[in-house]
């Protein structure tokens, strides 16, 4: 285990993350990159981008609270050190997505009220389920909730957003690519470290599986809200159409053309991809995936 955990050391993190893929970036993107004028100039698109970014901030604030909250209950020094790196990764994500809100024109004085106004209540419930485990110092449930469920969801959502923004908004796509690299490491730790702990504490399985089911439900409810009321959909299509004249590639993800999908189809594609990933990852650590109710 010591060898495996050396892959998650602070030393390894310093070399691969701040001194690696984040080198020469500014708030996660290339220096000087800006949000597209077309986005900033269209109030509907801008409002939608603010709404989406608020959910990212809410998710990352939860991840920051969870990872820092788990340090104290980690059973060994190496896990504590890894969670220390994850704490700073999550703080960086909070910082870069908050900065995006400012870039999109949210006044600094209105940051908290904007987040409060636009935070999806289902996402807040999702966070509460996880943070309750963290507060009870339940390390195994906390890591499954944080590093498998939350990070697994974030990883897939960010990948889809990355595919959708690569041509439309390189600044945001670059910000996302750094966070995707971080999430990959977090999910890897969750899978690798927690399997052994679950074997040591088999009695914890039912409770953790219930948590996964509940978190998955709130996640699906969040997706439903996000995709079922998207007035800016046509605007986004027009924006992409205006770019396709300049040779912008199609936004493809998991074999689907994201531009051609209706919001409901996109919701299903995202939900199915995340849930499939959950099933595989939970299976790897010895947990049985529980199918959530569909909101």
């Amino acid at each position, binding site marked *: 285990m010591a060898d495996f955990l050396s892959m998650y*050391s602070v030393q390894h993190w310093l070399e691969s993350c701040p001194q690696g893929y984040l080198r020469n970036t*500014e708030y996660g993107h290339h220096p000087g990159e800006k949000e597209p004028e077309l986005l900033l100039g269209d109030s509907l698109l801008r409002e939608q981008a603010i709404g989406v970014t608020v959910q990212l901030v809410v998710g990352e604030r939860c991840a920051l609270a969870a990872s*820092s*909250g788990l*340090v104290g209950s980690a059973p060994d020094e190496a896990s504590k050190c890894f969670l220390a790196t994850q*704490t700073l990764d999550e703080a960086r994500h909070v*910082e870069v997505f908050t900065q995006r809100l400012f870039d999109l024109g949210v006044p600094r004085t209105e940051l908290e009220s904007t987040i409060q106004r636009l935070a999806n209540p289902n996402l807040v419930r999702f966070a509460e389920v996880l943070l309750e485990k963290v507060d009870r110092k339940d390390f195994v449930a906390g890591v499954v909730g944080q590093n498998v469920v939350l990070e697994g969801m974030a990883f897939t959502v960010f990948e889809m957003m990355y595919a959708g923004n690569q041509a439309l908004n390189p600044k945001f796509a670059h910000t996302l690519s750094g966070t995707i690299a971080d999430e990959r490491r977090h999910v890897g730790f969750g899978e690798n470290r927690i399997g052994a702990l679950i074997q040591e504490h088999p009695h914890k399985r039912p409770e953790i599986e219930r948590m996964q089911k509940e978190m998955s439900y709130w996640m699906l409810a969040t997706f439903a809200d996000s995709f079922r009321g998207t007035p800016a959909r046509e605007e986004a299509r027009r924006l992409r159409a205006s770019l396709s004249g300049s040779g912008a590639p199609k936004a493809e993800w998991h074999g689907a053309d994201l531009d051609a999908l209706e919001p409901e189809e996109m919701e299903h594609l995202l939900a199915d991809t995340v849930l499939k990933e959950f099933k595989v990852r939970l299976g790897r650590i010895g947990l049985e995936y529980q199918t959530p109710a569909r909101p």
Partner: protein
Amino acid sequence: MSEQSPDVHALDPESFLEEVHSFEFWFHSVEGYLSGQTYGHRPDVHGAPLAPDERERLVTVLCNYCIGETAALEGASGLVAIAPNRHTKVFLATQVVDEGRHLEVLLHRLTDVGVHAPEAEIERRATRSLLQFKRRLLELVETRDWEAAIFAQNVILEAMEFTVFQTHARTADLVTREVLNGIVKDERRHMGFGENELGRRLKLTPHIRARLGEVKKELDHLVLESFEETLRALAVPAAERPELGRHYLEVVARLGFA
């Protein structure tokens, strides 16, 4: 990470705090002294072999440093939850990774000098007062008393580590010296945060000074006792032992908490 803004002191107070408590600022601060290092020292620096008694003393102090750093790591991570705003949460997250790094480099140094099971060795060599200090610090964090907890963590504990590491680095072997000097640079930043955060709060609500004074009285006692226990274990003559305590009290006084 891109170039840092040229003069942070030209910023208004709110923007200044946002800048100096950011991930970006942290990275620029540590890049200079951590770049190219492996576990806190230059990879081509190797210390001369240690005599058995020297090694024994080094293992004892490193084990106790690990307890201090574990306290700092658990304390700082616990403080994230009760930090009053976004800037302080982000700063504390940078401190969490610093403390994690300190623990990691010290554990690595222990294995370097031949300790095969550092965690067991730490438990065996831990001084009672330091363990008590750790318990008390984490209780303050647990009770969500922001001022008392940040005082215990970023003034008392950081000043204790700063004093001990700086003093030890002067006479340590080459590798340990580089490791400790790197940690000391981080501690300065952490103490600066504590001083700044509490300084602003004391200006607004001077009555909290009395409460911090009580915390100081209680913790100073444990700090000085842990110095005494460690120095005794290191066979430092009794007449020389108070010097470290005096140095620690001076550092805390310089931070404005006499």
